[in-house]
């Protein structure tokens, strides 16, 4: 709550010019974004679709 109030106060202190500016940052200059962590997930669930696809692939390789 206190943090929100500080943010509102900071926003009110901005000049009109500052309020209407946009900042563009190159992806390589930006802070590194948190991505989806996949390491702990392990192998994909063997749903019917996955099974059929992998079976078709095996068939194609054997062919």
């Amino acid at each position, binding site marked *: 709550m206190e943090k929100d109030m500080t943010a509102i106060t900071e*926003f009110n202190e901005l000049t009109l010019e500052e309020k*209407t*500016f*946009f900042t563009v940052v*190159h992806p390589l200059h930006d802070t590194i*974004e948190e991505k989806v962590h996949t390491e702990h997930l*392990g192998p*994909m669930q063997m749903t019917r679709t996955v099974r059929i*696809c992998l079976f078709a692939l095996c068939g194609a390789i054997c062919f």
Partner: protein
Amino acid sequence: MTLTHPATENKLAPVPAQSIRVSDKWVAHALTFLMVFGPGLIVMEADNDAGAVSTYVQAGAQYGTHLLWLLLLLLPICYLVQEMVVRLPIATGQGHAAMIYQRFGTWWGRFSLPDLLLLNFLTLVTEFASIALVLTKLGVDPRVGVRVAALALTGLVLISSYRRWERIVVLLCLLDLTWFAIAFRVHVSSHELLQHTIIPSLPANGLAAGWLFLVIAIVGTTIAPWQLFFQQSCIADKRLRFSDLRWARLDTFVGAVFTILVAGCMMLAGNAAFQHRWSFSDPTQMAVQLGGGFWPFLKDAILLMMINAAVLGTTTISLSSAWAYGEVKGWPHSLEKPFREAPGFYAVYVLCVMAAAALVLIPGSPLQLIILSVQVLAGLMLPSAIIFLQLLLNDKEVLGERFANKRWNNIVKWIIVILLFVLSLLLAAQVAVPRLFPNS
């Protein structure tokens, strides 16, 4: 973190030092797009490599403008396939090879990675073979020219950062605008052009196996396995953010349109040979005939564009191998890192380029066998790569609802996947066993 954010957000979140402040929303959008722009155009245009030039020119020389409709049909297909590739690295920050190992296990990983590396290497050999062939026509000793090309391609990556490499390669892509001048010069009536682009037409003598396999070869040329691996790793290396997704999609769409237009121009160049009933065994011979028949500029322009196509293909395909191998091995694998911080990654790139160039310089290399192997392996590799991609895009554990395929585009993409699966296998079977389909 968003790429464009009003000052209200800037005040609350730290703003990186190297940023640009603009007052107009549309200028901010345009600048954002320019910063994100690159991987989509590069992956698409690099696919118009030496082999593609040969296929498109041959299609034009055999069937005139009658196959232009196929390119129009391929535009949404190649965009929709590569669009899937865009979402995965933005969400996970990882490349395709790493995701296959993680989600499908070591067996499928070991099937995909060596296949990709072998296919990429053989394709590289064809790129250097094309460079050698063109240099011979230009009166340059290929033994010197191929060495210089290999060293330049190595230097391009070793002494560059990601951004410098990207700028140079985008510039090389834009050099392909020359194909528009070539197509304009060989002149085709706008009525014929429009008619054969919009209305599909079949050969006058009915459906022959030769025509069918040329159609399949064009599809196989336009969508190649390395592209799926390359763009995913490239986006991960460029560290595109969640908010960049729409711009990365636009980049891919622009790349797809540009590539299809350039491919159409290549077909129109081949159409000149069709109209004059010239016969040739490779596009360099056609370039020489065009130079004599129309305008000397055409010969040099086509030959130089062929070198450009091979150079673009070489740097992107080698990088796709280096990124994929680096990801799976867990090595540092970024163009932003200097050689001393990612020696394994750069070593794979250099090894691919140098070994392919060396193989071409060995007298009596089995180039014809290599070209056939590329087509067969691509036919085996594309179905697996594209099926893994489609399954990963349906993997809500990884992508959540936001990035996973939606119902409507899932149906469209399954149709594309099945179509490519069947066509790839048909092409591989036809190349491996030519007698399987008569009259081809």
